[in-house]
């Protein structure tokens, strides 16, 4: 039987397991992409967010068969980009990271938002991050960080 072929963080790969396996589990267990966190396995927290063909998904709610031919990006890949550097700096300057568990997903949600809408309003930022739960920060610092990244990273998105 043919493997499931897809691109992970820019590298072509093939998965020989079941098409019904969760992308989340496969990323963590097979590919050791442990930046992808498991918070609920029900699509309710966003900790497992990844980009598939540039679009934000909860990887717990994606079956492996659905990524056939797609390009999957996790923080392991995104952290090598200039856009990440801008977000990293912005998050750092306002201390938007507390326990850190939601953060890789949160940063990818910010990337997904800014890549569609480079100059979002505060409401649009909150909407863009609304599927990513954070229990530590009350969200203000994260929203400010994304806003600052959008302003200072002018031209990156």
């Amino acid at each position, binding site marked *: 039987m043919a493997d499931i072929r897809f691109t992970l963080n820019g590298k072509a790969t093939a998965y020989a397991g079941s098409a019904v396996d969760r992308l989340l589990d496969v990323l*963590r*267990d097979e590919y*050791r992409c*442990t*930046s*992808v*966190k*498991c*918070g*609920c*396995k*029900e699509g*309710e*927290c966003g*900790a497992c967010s990844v980009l598939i063909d540039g679009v934000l998904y909860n990887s717990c709610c994606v079956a492996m068969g659905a990524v056939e031919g797609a390009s999957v990006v*996790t*923080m*392991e890949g995104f*952290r090598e980009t200039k856009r*990440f550097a801008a*977000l*990293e700096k912005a*998050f*750092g*300057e*306002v*201390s*938007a*990271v*507390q*326990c*850190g*568990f*939601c*953060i*890789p997903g949160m*940063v990818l949600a910010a990337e997904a938002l800014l890549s569609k809408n480079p100059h979002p309003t*505060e*409401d649009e*930022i*909150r*909407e863009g*991050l*609304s*599927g*990513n*739960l*954070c*229990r*530590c*920060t*009350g*969200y*203000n*610092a*994260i*929203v400010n960080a994304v806003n600052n990244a959008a302003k200072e990273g002018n031209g990156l998105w």
Partner: protein
Amino acid sequence: MEKISQSVVKKDHAPKVSGRSVYVADYPSEGVLCGKLLRAKVARAKVLRVEVPELPEGYFYVDAKDVPGDNNVNIVLDDTPVFCRETVEYIGEPIAMLCGPDPKVVERLRDACKVEYEELTPVLDLRAATEQFFDYNFGHGDVDKAFAEADKVYDEEFETGYQEQAYLETQGMMAEPEEGGRMFVHGSSQCAYYIHGAVARVLGCGPSGVHVLQDVTGGGFGGKEAFPSILGCQVAVAARKCGKSVRCVFDRREDMEYTSKRHPSLCRYRVAVKDGRVTAMDIDVIFNAGAYSTLSAVVLQRGIIAAPGIYNVPNVRVHGCARKTNTSPCGAYRGFGAPQTFFAVEMIMDHIARDLGVDSLAFKEAHLVKQGDTTSTCGKYHFPVPIPVMIDEIDKACDYRAKRAAYAKPQTGRFRRGIGMSMYFHGAGFTGSGERDLIKAVAKLRKYKDGTVEVLASNGEIGQGVRTTFPKIVAHELNIPLDKVYYSHPDTARVPDSGPTVASRSLMVVGELLRRAAIKLREQWVDGEEQEVEERFKEPDFMIPFYIDKFEGDAYPTYAWAVNAIELEIDTHTGLAKVLGAYGSFDVGTPIDYNVVLGQMEGGFLQGIGYASIEKMDYDAKGRIRNNSFSDYLIPTAKDVPNLKCMLHVEKYPDGPYGAKGAGELPLVGAPGAYLEAMEQALGGVTLNHAPFTAEDTLAVITKEGI
């Protein structure tokens, strides 16, 4: 802003934001067995037998018979078993752990275990529960006389529900047998030395037979104060039996149903009023402890000490008890018993004010404590009480008084508004003489030949920033760059016991030890040499000694103060409430890092608003928690309270580092009082007595009152 308060990029920022931090679930699985708990399916029963399916090679069944030492987890008492004894006492109580290399096989084996029960009648109704774990009484003045002489007596009952910590990373611990027999336990946790003590006793190996490391921890909020001791013991026993590393990471539903949460409460307040002033409070506090006592004693102590609020009440009588029910044991959660009683006292003050025809704020202001006044436990407020100024700050930030007056007028239409205010303290550090008698914190600094300095302490980074703020204090005092000072996650094999990461104590108590240690190191500093200095806790000399048997003396050396206002709008068609603004003024002394402290205030305040409004958890007639997932137990998203404004008021504490006081818990404590006051106003001046107050509750009032 003082130099020490200026924000820096946090030390753990880079690894966390890039996803490089290794949480306990992130270690490779090779050579590690997966552990899954076999749990009780009934709330109370004798366990007659467990039929275990045939186990493939490399798979293990671990239960109480495998515990080498004592099958009791040491918390405050030691009634919590590692694995159940003859009976199970709540749905979900661990009976055994199944271990093996393939998680799916382990799960299948676990589910194939047949447990034979002889069911017993569980106690589920808190009001009807008779078994008490703890029962305390204290007070002062002549309460009976005050009631006899009162113009009017108010008598109300207040109820609060569970609150789940909902840290984004579920509980998880791992145990690795080391060569030579020592057991290495690590995982998501707040208190490495608590786990250390508990595991040593359960393994019967003495303190040198175990060491405990705190892994990167995805949030705690109290939920990882005591619980990791239990899970740590379970994986340690399993690893001992299997002779291999064992890791157990909970799934979300398991975590929500079976790990400790905030105690539900029932508080009855009888209040005597004479000449428009409160003359006495007679308070009865009942906490639902769940099936084992865990931390209920100390949670209850903090709760009842706060019961009269921040008001001068000449005659006080408080009775508090923690009752056993056959439900998941409750435990620590940010605020630690105080949110329940502060809610009740804020509401009764509000209700009395309304009955007397005065505004709640004016009534509260007239009763405020001030410096030099006596505390509920006959201690003293040694330092200034900045509440009046903070009220003005809030008033300025949201036009509180004008809105309060405007919304008090009759409202019409689909949407109605209200605004409410609460004011409260959080006693910084352990209650009573705990720091002096029990914790006896020790902290060290080790300077290496290259001039870098390592902080050696046992307080865990759980998002609150100690990996940054501890080094900031040390670097500041040594006058060296911050990157020359570092603080790793504590491993009990190499750090002294500076106490647990609880009670908003780390920065105030341990931070001060580190400041003093840094001064000592500075005075002894020799370039190119390895040096170590140590500091031990000393109780401030102004303290009035506290006696827990009488609840007398200074329960806390100082207090962090807060004023909260919440403005909301309700939809009379749906009962939904929109928080238009949440305003908090918080005094935690000098912020050791402005952004870090602001982040604590904002995060804690939002948790408090959740507790007041949408975070509802309950159990059914069989004792099973119904709200066990993120779709059934709702916590606020980024869209729920966009207008959340926190400000810092600084009233320095001379015995904290640079004037810092305890911070972490404060911002959660008062939200329910402010929220419910606002809700009462939006609903046209009704009297409300429970939190959370959900859309369903709101619509029920609207329907009943014909609003």
